[in-house]
């Protein structure tokens, strides 16, 4: 058996038209993870608001998990960050915004800051909905990174909790690794050979990671491995979009500096144009 990895789910609630959907998603997730839910509202506590929230929670069709509601004033980013630490939250749920008139989702500045600074996992939902939309297929990154092992293990756990059945581990191999420029047929042959070699090396690496995953999980979840030679962080988002994945699971980048923001890479591509729901594993 594996232990329960998510014990506390934290969600920020704002009294917007999306309130019901957000709350329902948070309640649903907490129930699926068998975790307790902390709802944080940034602002003054008002009776009318509390009554509204209670009514929504009462309307929730499934079994309501254990929950608490916190009312705190201050700057949203700081309040939520502090709440994450104080409540020892394991996962923070955030909603994304939809670009006007277009089927494009991105996250607002508050959510973006939280994603960068938060010390727990972050789940970005592209469109929270009142009714349940089942998650059945997820994509997780398998790139050579110290945190990848954790991300893959977490992916299996989350998928199992959500009742999903299919997982693709995507290995993004930067094209620079191939280091051969294809000018003519000879260059192409060489680069194809080098790619095969890299593929085999990466395969054995992922296999090693998979050895640590409990057999039971590997049995219930159908998984495969896909290699993509392309821009890191970008290709996986595009892949998840093409494959119509319900959830994309990514490592958090090691450290973000100012340079990383000026020259977007890894996570930034995905944050600016969310292909689907994204879970960022710390």
């Amino acid at each position, binding site marked *: 058996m594996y232990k329960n990895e998510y014990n506390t789910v934290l969600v920020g609630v704002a009294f917007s038209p999306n309130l019901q959907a957000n709350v329902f998603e948070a309640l649903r997730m907490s129930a699926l993870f068998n975790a307790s839910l902390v709802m944080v509202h940034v602002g003054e506590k008002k009776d009318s608001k509390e009554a509204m929230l209670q009514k929504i929670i009462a309307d929730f069709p499934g079994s309501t998990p254990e929950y608490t509601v916190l009312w705190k004033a201050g700057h949203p980013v700081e309040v939520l960050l502090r709440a994450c630490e104080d409540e020892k939250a394991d996962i923070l749920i955030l909603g994304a915004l939809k670009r006007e008139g277009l089927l494009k989702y991105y996250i607002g500045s508050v959510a973006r800051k939280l994603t960068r600074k938060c010390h727990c996992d972050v789940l970005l939902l592209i469109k929270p*909905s009142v009714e349940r939309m*089942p998650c059945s*297929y997820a994509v997780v990154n398998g790139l050579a990174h110290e945190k990848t092992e954790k991300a893959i293990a977490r992916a299996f756990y989350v998928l199992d909790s959500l009742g999903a059945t299919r997982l693709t581990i995507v290995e993004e191999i930067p094209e620079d690794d191939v280091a051969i420029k294809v000018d003519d047929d000879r260059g*192409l042959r060489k680069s194809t050979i080098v790619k095969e070699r890299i593929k085999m090396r990466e395969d054995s690496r992922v296999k090693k990671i998979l050895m640590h995953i409990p057999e039971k999980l590997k049995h219930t979840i159908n998984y*495969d491995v896909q290699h993509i030679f392309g821009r890191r962080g970008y290709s996986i988002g595009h*892949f998840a979009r*093409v494959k119509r994945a319900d959830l994309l699971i990514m490592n958090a980048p090691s450290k973000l500096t100012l340079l990383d923001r000026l020259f977007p890479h890894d996570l930034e*591509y995905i944050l600016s144009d969310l292909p689907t729901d994204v879970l960022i594993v710390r």
Partner: protein
Amino acid sequence: MMVKSPFFSGLRSNIFAGFVVSLIALPLALGLAVASGFPMVAGVITAVVGGVLVSVFGGSHVTITGPGYGLVVVLLSAVAVLGDGDMQAGYLYALSAVILSGVLLLLFGFLRFGALSDFFPASAIQGMLSAIGVTLLLKQFYVMLGDMKTKGTVIELLTGVPELLKSLLLASSGQLYAVSIGVISLMIMFFYSKITNRFFRLIPAPMWVILVALGFDVYFSLVGVENPINKKLLVSLPNDMLTSVPVPDFSKWKEPVFWGIVLSVTLVSSVESLLSIKAVDKLDPEKRRSNINKDMRALGIATIVSGFLGGMNVGTVISRSSVNVNNQATNRSSNFFHAVFLLLFVIVFQEQLGKIPFTSLAAILVYTGYKLAAPAIFVRMYQIGKEQLFIFLTTLIATLLTDLISGILIGVLATFVVHVVLNKAFWLFSRNLLKPNVLMYKESETQSYYVGVIHFCTFLNFYKLKVKLDMIPQTEKVVVDFSLCSFVDHTVQESLNNYEELFVRKGGVVEIIGLDVHQADSSHPFAVRTLRPMQKFRVFGRGKTRRQLQLEALAKQKGWSYQPSPKTKERLLRDHLGYETTSVERVYNKLSSANNEVSLFDIKYSEGVFIAKESVHTTLMCVCLKTPAPVFSFDREMLLEKLSLLAGFHDIDFPDYPTFSDEFFVRGNDPEKVRAFFTSELISFFSAYGFYHIMCNGKELIVRQFLRPATPAEAAAIIEFGLDLKKKIDG
């Protein structure tokens, strides 16, 4: 025992090819040099140096190098502008510009700028080439009619034509003889392709022009009369032409005009060469891929050497290269031999070459200029689309009125403006220009390469797609998916068409999907295609894509009907299992059998209103069954697991077929009926075609392979599968 290397076994045919090419190269080299304001021998120097050096250092296989057409216009204005009227001084200045452009070319080669020509819109390049053609045509027209001192802009030249014709009436007989030879030469050039006589066609047209001129001279010497052609109109070769080397004059290097000329020379020469190399690769019988960057370096080296020896820019030339291929050249040695023969000709026939009038050389170039700006090109541009004609004309006129660099830049700008106007959205480009937009991976199910493009794909970012396509072995199968891409321009489609041809030649396939819903304004298959999100359903009348044409052919072959236009109301999916929550946006490209029992169609649907997903775009086959069947679903990857939401659906095990149960997921609401339905025959059939996903609502079967539209070949396979399945079930 001696090992026979392909180099020596192919030597004979390469020597022969080199000989034939030199027959064409000689008149062209002379004519192009004169037209550029260079001494006549410069053209020969260029071709000889190019032939020798590029055949040693080059990266292409069957190309021929030498002076190019495009350069004539640039070099002539360089000589005129830099020399300020003094042709000799201008020539020495122009040589320094040639040398520096050689250095730039060499640099471009090292910096891997081989993709340079891909950054220019195809229509703008065509406009630039046509502008060169118009200039060449007009200037040489004057020379052909015996007027050697042509100067001025294209407009001045054009308005001067009546004057020129009038002056012919007063011309001396010496001039008239020359003019008549010129006109006869022009007729030869134009009608050569119409004449089918085998012996006549043994000699290439430009050589005929030379032979006519020489024959004229021989006739008069036989009769014993002096050649009546005005001496000024006869080609003159210096006696010491192979020993005296001009010294390039670099003293203009401080002037910006000089650098402008260097840049235009480099631009024209590299674009012309790159386009030629690409075109010749398609002709190569051994289907090799040229190393463009290596070839560029070789061209750079050759240009530098040629400049120091008094020659012009060395470029790759398409017409001479195609003659080379047609004469069974197999490697670069034919380029070397063409240079050797050229040199031999000039040394041996030095005296005879002096009998050729300028007018006949000009006739060759008038014809070349006409080919570059032929009315057929205008018509073709119009057929691709009005906006392409607009870009083409803008570039053409801008180039004629200003200069090459400004002209092509205006063309690029015009293209971009047209794209913004077509999309009515600047943000599409501004927001996504620098983002990566291409995904490539190998599909594990089909082992074919999937290349997906999002946002937009135009000349601005085609290189991103090109890099990926270049990395795929051309023996493989590639699917290029544009369904997430809002805008695809003409340049990209033309380049993709090149890739399709290259892949087909090597046994691979490039198939383009996801373009059928895009809107086109003309019926040309390469017309720009935009996806306008707010648009109502489009009725496809004109502008079928290649995929649609192939689907149509497939329908015809099966004797089915084909309906490309979308239909909104599609009954079948509404009440179909698994698609209950879907709202169908459109069904199009529908192929259906005569009795309407079997059909295949593309469909776009979204999975229910409350679900945030973007809509699915795929190809489905629908089979009506006569025999009643249970309600079930079948697939391997549980892509249809959303069905589990529906009450009463179980995963059904087949105890008698454990491997089948393990590998596939069969679900239904009545396990007993489903088990009875799956006979052993059906189970083995399904196992063999496990990559299809099948749903059955009791009366109809829906078959699907991918979550993307199927390529025509895949569609044909699905149809075969569906028909087989129907036969198995209905008997």
